[in-house]
């Protein structure tokens, strides 16, 4: 069993700065073999967790993006109809054709099937599960407990390896209790100033420690304003990249530029109108 400090270090080496709790969650995932459900606002880095996890284990990341109307044929498997038809035409009159066309050769793997058929256990990311329908969620629950797939024409396909499953949800729909109970739960919050500073340092080439700290403090201030869309970590990184690109060393040197580049953080018209130059000035005053 890997300790959580080792996991935190390994994640940091792959570019993801995790807090101690997330590291615990990941060590539990391996110990208990349960999927991890990540919830949190958009842009706090839920998807990044899975990517970093795949990097840490040097394994493949298989991603299933959920959407309304997602069904088994695009999530699990599908027969390759075109090839099946061609085979039928080519072997017209042969008896054994039926056995042939329902073999693995004609099977198209979709993410969920692919995830249990790899020689090395991959990381399976089921992104935005709340966008999928109820029915799909129920089906997923079955897959996550048995890790086997039954295909009527082929029989049951057991898992070769059990993938590490990460689910993310934005909370646009309430998930079922059964699915929630099955998973470990972690709420990804906006990072504190210290962690955000380290994230900026790790991700943005050319950002100095003092500028990173200023940016993190400024973003913290912006988050406390009454905004419709609170900026996430992704926005912070955008803004940091913009400031570094404009060659700004200290936020106090160029208040106008700071105000203008705030469009990286404020993504609605309402929010933009609310953060006036005066508000920017006030926020800058607190950054120190």
């Amino acid at each position, binding site marked *: *069993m890997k*300790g*959580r400090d080792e996991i935190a270090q390994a994640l940091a080496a792959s570019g993801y700065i995790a807090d*101690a*709790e997330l590291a*615990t*969650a990941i060590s*539990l995932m391996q*110990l*208990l073999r*349960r999927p*991890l459900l990540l*919830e949190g606002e958009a842009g706090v880095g839920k998807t990044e967790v899975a990517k970093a996890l795949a990097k840490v284990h040097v394994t493949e990341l298989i991603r299933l993006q959920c959407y309304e*109307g997602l069904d088994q*044929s695009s999530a699990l498997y599908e*027969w390759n*109809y075109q090839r*099946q*038809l061609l085979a*039928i*035409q080519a072997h*017209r009159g042969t008896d054994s054709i039926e056995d042939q*066309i329902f073999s693995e050769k004609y099977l198209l793997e979709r993410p969920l099937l692919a995830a249990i058929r790899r020689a090395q256990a991959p990381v399976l990311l089921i992104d935005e599960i709340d966008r999928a329908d109820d029915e799909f969620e129920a089906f997923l629950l079955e897959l996550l407990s048995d890790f086997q797939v039954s295909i009527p024409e082929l029989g049951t396909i057991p898992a070769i390896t059990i993938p590490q499953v990460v689910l993310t949800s934005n*909370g646009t*729909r*309430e998930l079922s*209790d059964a699915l*929630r*109970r099955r*998973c*470990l*739960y*972690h*709420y990804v919050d906006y990072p504190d100033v210290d962690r955000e500073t380290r994230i900026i340092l790790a991700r943005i080439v050319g950002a100095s420690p003092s500028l990173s700290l200023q940016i993190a403090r400024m973003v913290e201030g912006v988050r406390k304003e009454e905004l*419709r869309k609170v900026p996430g970590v992704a926005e912070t990184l955008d803004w940091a990249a913009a400031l570094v690109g404009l060659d700004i060393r200290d936020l106090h040197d160029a208040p106008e530029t700071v105000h203008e580049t705030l469009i990286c953080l404020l993504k609605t018209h*309402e929010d933009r109108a609310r953060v006036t130059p005066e508000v920017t000035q006030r926020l800058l005053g607190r950054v120190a």
Partner: protein
Amino acid sequence: MSCCGASPDFDDLNAVSRLISARLAAFLRTLRDAGFRIGLAEGQDAATLMSAGYAARPSLLRSAFKHLFSARKSDWDKFDGLFDAFWVGRRVRSRSRTAGLAQGASSPSLKGLQDGATEPGGKQALADQIPSSDDAPDRRGGEGRMEGASRAENLAEVDFRKLSDPDQIAQAHEAAAQLARVMRTRLTRRDLARRCGYRLDLRRTIHRNISHGGVPISLVKRQRKDKPLRLIVLLDASGSMSAYTSVFLRFIHGVLDEFHEAEAFLFHTRLAYVSDALKEKDAGRALDRLSIMAQGAGGGTKIGESLQSFNRWHAQRVIHSRSCVMIVSDGYETGDAALLGQEMAALSRRCRRIVWLNPMMAWAGYAPEARGIKAALPYVDLYAPANTLQSLRALEPYLAKL
């Protein structure tokens, strides 16, 4: 971290595990009381964790259990307090209560976190019994001896503002939440029954007809799935509505919980977006948060201005082609009535149906005289009273038809 995992004697292990499991079982019971959904598998996993060395440090164990037992944000937030209270022995701060909920002053203990609103009766009834046994028959008058079903029926016809007994209020809240659930299930079933194919699904047709050598004999149509109805509730929380606000809040909480897509707004002199506050699963807590927001700043109701800000900032996001906007208000506009008319017109252009619920409508001698309601009525598709549970229930078939 494998201190007691691998090698100790069988007897030792047995004694330790007995001790642990007794303590653990008590903790699980505490969590279940606090609204956590925990099954047997979680209990087993918790025991695994404890024997795998996680019990060595309280902070590590807390963090591990937090991930294992929490299922949603509200669990996540309250877990640390519960854990500390149980294992470390710290007391938990009790939270404030919504006025009118059927819950007396409770001691600031773990039990205090138990949600009074989700299970009325129970302990509360027990505590009530002795002091109030004398006056109970008087208070309930003739219906004192009636049994469950008929009492519920009665409650359905009582005007919300006449509910004074906290128990009755709790029941009304429960019924409102229940009603929201029922409305949702009916809607979904209708949708399923109404599906019909209108387009050829080429992919499935070919698949189905492989047994015919690819000649398309049996056709598969693509089935259209109806978008579920989205319900947007705008609740007037001004002083004149205060008698009704708490029941409607509970109803809205149920609606948000059960409808796939629902949004809620409160308004008095300004508009507040409250869906997030209401997403809290724990009804008591959600109502607490809301009742703070619902306190009007005083100085009347500006329906027109509130609608204007709704149209301007929120409508684009929350309204789609199958949206029903439900306004719950008495229509006493203290602002500009012309503005209200104008904004209602804008709203009606955007959404499919506007339902206006007016609790005052059922009062004897009420006529829609207020300037506000006069300006708004031309744009309203359904104008109905909503002062009893029965009248709320009567809306359901209407919503199903949308």
